[in-house]
């Protein structure tokens, strides 16, 4: 208290200007002196006169206090009094205080984490100057943000709305600095990339638009700061050094500043190279192909004074021009502007829906915590009825008492908020350093900033006032006379109280959370055992890129055939096949398809967009994809033979109406080639989204549609390490310079399963929190009702009540409330599964396992929470209890 007193004095002097204080002091002293003068004149000796004057004046400190109040400056004083009193009250019941603070810490922490993610991914702009006016250009007719390079050039040169329009695309390449060759992720960017974004180099210089003079004219590298730090040990001598990138010499020009991580939130590139050199980096380039949309994103900053609407109109004028000039490649084209960072409408809506859903659930957690604390506070206020009545009787105003209760509530909520914020900051820091994929430098940019702290503070304050408000009515209605006369408020509340309603609400919310986490868990379990259209178990993938190893396209078929044969020669490998990109891997290929009788083959006239795979004949057996009808290709289906394809059921249904009519029929590719369907394969999952709807897919023989980047699929049940060693030695025999990345198919699928796993984990954590909250809520209520009614229970036992009757009297109400709450929550939770269907595979409310799981979990929670109070009720010893009264 000493500390608090000195603190109070110090704050008091802060808030009462020293001048006011000394003046007041001086005035009161002068009064006493004047009075003493008078008394002295009437014959008293001076010391006695001063003593009398002081006594006649009365309580000097008290009047000073009243003077301060009269001046209206007593807010802080009262606040400090309330804080002291609240601290004293809380110290008397540490269990209550700790439980309350922890509950809030959990709830506010959950909210701060989710808000931190929302803030980092959706609210915070990219870390570039004047990010508010930065927009990416999206093709308006699809959720389609990629562009072709010639279209980009037209957009860049013809628009009048942007201060430079930049482009970038993601690539992977081998970097050889002379010591250890390693693969790296890089951005191929337009020459004006850094200038358009307004970024200044940390070291050396950047390349500019003026450095580009046609294909492969600008072999320059700008390193990201992080890559320079980790791979070049902060060596400032790297500027000007020449390194081998995909076996071509490139010169390091400079290093980007530390806070610049590229223009895609989820992937930080290791370095940047000019897009005009794409052919050297990737082995292929489509700098002149207007129909090939491989430029990942086109973005730029609006000129000052240009609105997004004006810019869109400007772009659409260019779109009209493109559509007229290049009807075959572009067709009618419109554009729209989107926020850069999450690849336009491709990632952003999913991320938005997921985070909004999470935010909603986290808000529910906070609401449940507030209901929980509200009922605890109401119970406390009821217990403190005598104290409140006494204070009222002694002349305290009701508003003063309510104010003190609020001070207590806000104090707890701020403590909980601080604890929760601390935990969430730790978690967010960890998340932003987390690398979920070993091959892929993905970052989750969620490090907390000021707005996270602010939101946590506001939430803490709001929740403090929310649950602090619950006992107010109780206090306002207290009749001090009645309470003091009749002792403790021993009314056995039979009617529905606020506390009961709060408990039901809280349990309902918790049941919603438990339900949604069960639905998510079931969804994940189902997605792991879903039919993917291939069998990832016992399959191994070997990723190779022949063009990186220097193979020319006419050498590809021979080498690929040799690789397959070498793999099949490994003992224990039952089958090995080739595919250009395995299903469910990022980077699938989609092609428009047309019916055989169509002559207008412009892309937007297509009957379907089919996912396209280029495979060797062995692929189906190696991948475990079942054939439903027809035949698999053979080696005879080569360049000279008529074009053939195997399509999946969905393809057959969409293009031909049925499987039987599809077999042997023809369809057309965008270039007009007629392709005959020779076989039908089962449906599967193709794009990197486990929850996708059935999609049409076609499998083309790799001999008719060559691919230089291929994955070998091996089916083998051999021990993994032995198998990997065998694969490596076989590949080394074929070509020692061929880079290969080997992993099991299950490992590779981590990427596709990342989103559902994250969703399940987050929902699971929230469900767990909900469960914990409902335990504390029921426990609080049950324990309170048992302790209030110990005397009654004692009398019942003394009169011969059985265990069952005692339990029913003690806990019946709590359990009934639990049942109501759970039923309501289950119902709401099942309605909420519609929302979950966005992120959870086949989220369905009518799942008996989910229903049973929720009912079981809630009963278990009820049992757990009422166990201790029940023991206490049963162990009541009527003799001791009645004697004590």
């Amino acid at each position, binding site marked *: 208290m000493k500390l608090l007193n000195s603190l109070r004095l110090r704050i008091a002097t802060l808030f009462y200007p020293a001048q006011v204080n000394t003046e007041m002091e001086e*005035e*009161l002293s*002068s009064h006493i002196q004047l009075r003493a003068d008078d008394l002295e004149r009437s014959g008293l000796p001076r010391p006695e006169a001063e003593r009398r004057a002081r006594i006649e004046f009365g309580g000097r400190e008290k009047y000073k206090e009243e003077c301060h109040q009269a001046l209206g400056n007593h807010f802080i004083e009262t606040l400090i009094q309330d804080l002291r009193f609240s601290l004293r009250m809380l110290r008397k019941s540490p269990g209550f205080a700790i439980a309350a603070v922890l509950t809030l810490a959990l709830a506010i922490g959950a909210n701060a984490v989710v808000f931190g993610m929302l803030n980092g991914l959706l609210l915070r702009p990219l870390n570039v100057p004047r990010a508010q006016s930065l927009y990416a250009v999206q093709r308006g007719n699809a959720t389609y943000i990629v562009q072709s390079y010639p279209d980009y050039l037209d957009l860049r040169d013809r628009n009048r709305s942007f201060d430079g329009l930049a482009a970038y695309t993601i690539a992977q390449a081998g970097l050889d600095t002379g010591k250890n060759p390693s693969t790296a992720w890089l951005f191929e960017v337009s020459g004006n990339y850094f200038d358009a974004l307004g970024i200044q180099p940390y070291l050396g210089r950047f390349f500019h638009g003026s450095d580009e003079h046609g294909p492969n004219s600008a072999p320059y590298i700008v390193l990201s700061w992080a890559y320079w730090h980790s791979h070049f040990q902060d060596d400032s001598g790297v500027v000007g050094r020449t390194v081998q990138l995909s076996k071509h010499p490139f010169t390091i020009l400079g290093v980007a500043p530390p806070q610049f991580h590229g223009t895609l939130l989820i992937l930080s590139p290791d370095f940047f190279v000019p897009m005009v050199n794409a052919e050297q980096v990737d082995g292929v380039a489509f700098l002149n192909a207007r129909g090939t949309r491989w430029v990942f994103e086109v973005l730029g900053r609006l000129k000052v004074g240009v609105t997004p609407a004006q810019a869109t109109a400007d772009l659409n004028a260019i779109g009209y021009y493109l559509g007229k000039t290049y009807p075959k490649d572009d067709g009618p084209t419109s554009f729209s502007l989107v926020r850069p960072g999450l690849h336009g409408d491709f990632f952003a809506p999913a991320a938005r829906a997921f985070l909004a859903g999470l935010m909603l659930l986290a808000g529910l957690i906070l609401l449940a915590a507030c209901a929980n604390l509200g009922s605890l506070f109401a119970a406390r206020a009821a217990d403190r009825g005598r104290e409140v009545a006494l204070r009222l009787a002694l002349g305290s105003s009701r508003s003063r008492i309510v104010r003190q209760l609020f001070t207590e509530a806000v104090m707890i909520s701020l403590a909980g908020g601080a604890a929760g914020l601390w935990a969430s900051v730790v978690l967010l820091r960890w998340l932003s350093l987390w690398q979920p994929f070993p091959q892929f430098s993905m970052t989750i940019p969620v490090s907390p900033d000021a707005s996270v702290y602010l939101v946590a503070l506001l939430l803490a304050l709001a929740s403090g006032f929310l649950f602090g408000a619950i006992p107010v009515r109780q206090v306002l209605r207290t009749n001090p006379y009645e309470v003091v006369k009749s002792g403790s408020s021993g009314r056995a509340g039979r009617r529905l109280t606020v506390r009961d309603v709060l408990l039901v609400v809280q349990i309902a919310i918790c049941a919603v959370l438990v339900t949604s986490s069960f639905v998510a868990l079931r969804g994940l379990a189902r997605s792991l055992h879903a039919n993917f259209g291939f069998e990832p178990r016992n399959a191994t993938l070997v990723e190779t890129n022949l063009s990186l190893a220097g193979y020319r396209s006419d050498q590809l078929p021979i080498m690929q055939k040799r690789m397959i044969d070498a793999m099949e020669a490994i003992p224990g490998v039952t089958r090995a096949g080739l595919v250009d990109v395995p299903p469910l891997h990022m980077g699938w290929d989609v092609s428009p398809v047309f019916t055989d009788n169509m002559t207008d083959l412009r892309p937007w006239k297509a009957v379907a967009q089919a996912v396209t795979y280029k495979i060797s004949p062995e692929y189906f057996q190696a991948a475990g994809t079942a054939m439903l009808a027809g035949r698999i290709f053979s080696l005879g289906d080569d360049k000279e033979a008529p074009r053939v394809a195997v399509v999946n059921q969905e393809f057959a249904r969409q293009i031909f109406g049925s499987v039987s009519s599809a077999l042997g029929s023809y369809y057309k590719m965008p270039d007009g080639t007629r392709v005959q369907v020779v076989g039908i394969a089962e449906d599967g999952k193709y794009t990197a989204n486990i929850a996708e709807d059935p999609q049409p897919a076609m499998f083309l023989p790799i001999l008719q549609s060559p691919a230089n980047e291929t994955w070998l699929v091996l089916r083998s049940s051999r021990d993994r390490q032995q198998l990997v060693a065998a694969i490596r030695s076989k590949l080394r025999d074929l070509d020692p310079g061929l880079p290969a990345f080997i992993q099991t198919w299950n490992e590779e699928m981590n990427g596709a399963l990342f989103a559902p796993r994250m969703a399940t984990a987050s929902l699971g954590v929230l469900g767990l929190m909900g469960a914990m909250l409902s335990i504390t809520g029921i426990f609080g209520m049950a324990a309170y009702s048992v302790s209030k009614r110990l005397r009654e229970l004692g009398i019942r036992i003394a009169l011969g009540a059985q265990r069952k009757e005692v339990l029913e009297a003690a806990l019946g109400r709590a359990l009934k409330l639990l049942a109501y709450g759970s039923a309501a929550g289950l119902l709401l939770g099942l309605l909420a599964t519609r929302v979950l269907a966005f992120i959870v595979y086949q989220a369905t409310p009518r799942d008996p396992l989910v229903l049973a799981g929720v009912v079981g979990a809630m009963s278990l929670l009820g049992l757990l929470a009422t166990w201790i109070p029940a023991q206490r009720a049963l162990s009541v010893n009527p003799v001791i209890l009645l004697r004590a009264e």
Partner: protein
Amino acid sequence: VAHQAQLLPGTLDLLILRAVSLGPLHGYGVLLRIGQISGNALLIEQGALYPGLFRLVRQGLLKASWGTSDNNRRAKFYELTSAGRKRLREETESWNRLASAIACALSQQPEET
């Protein structure tokens, strides 16, 4: 002292205004003046005067300035503002109405009711 009357709540402010209306006074002077004009019939604890003075200053009814007392002590002197003068007039009227009404009520003889 035995015959002094307790103040009714709210009347202290009126007395202060009245006392100060006769000329600027320091706090102790206000107290003496009230004693003088009320014939020492009212019991006022000396310190209780000051919250009242501060309140009236805050309401803009009095203004205060430091000066020197008759016996050469520094003291804060209060005087009426124009708002204070107006308030004193209103309060005096309303008090007189109330007092005469109560006096009238109390002086009625039983048979006249």
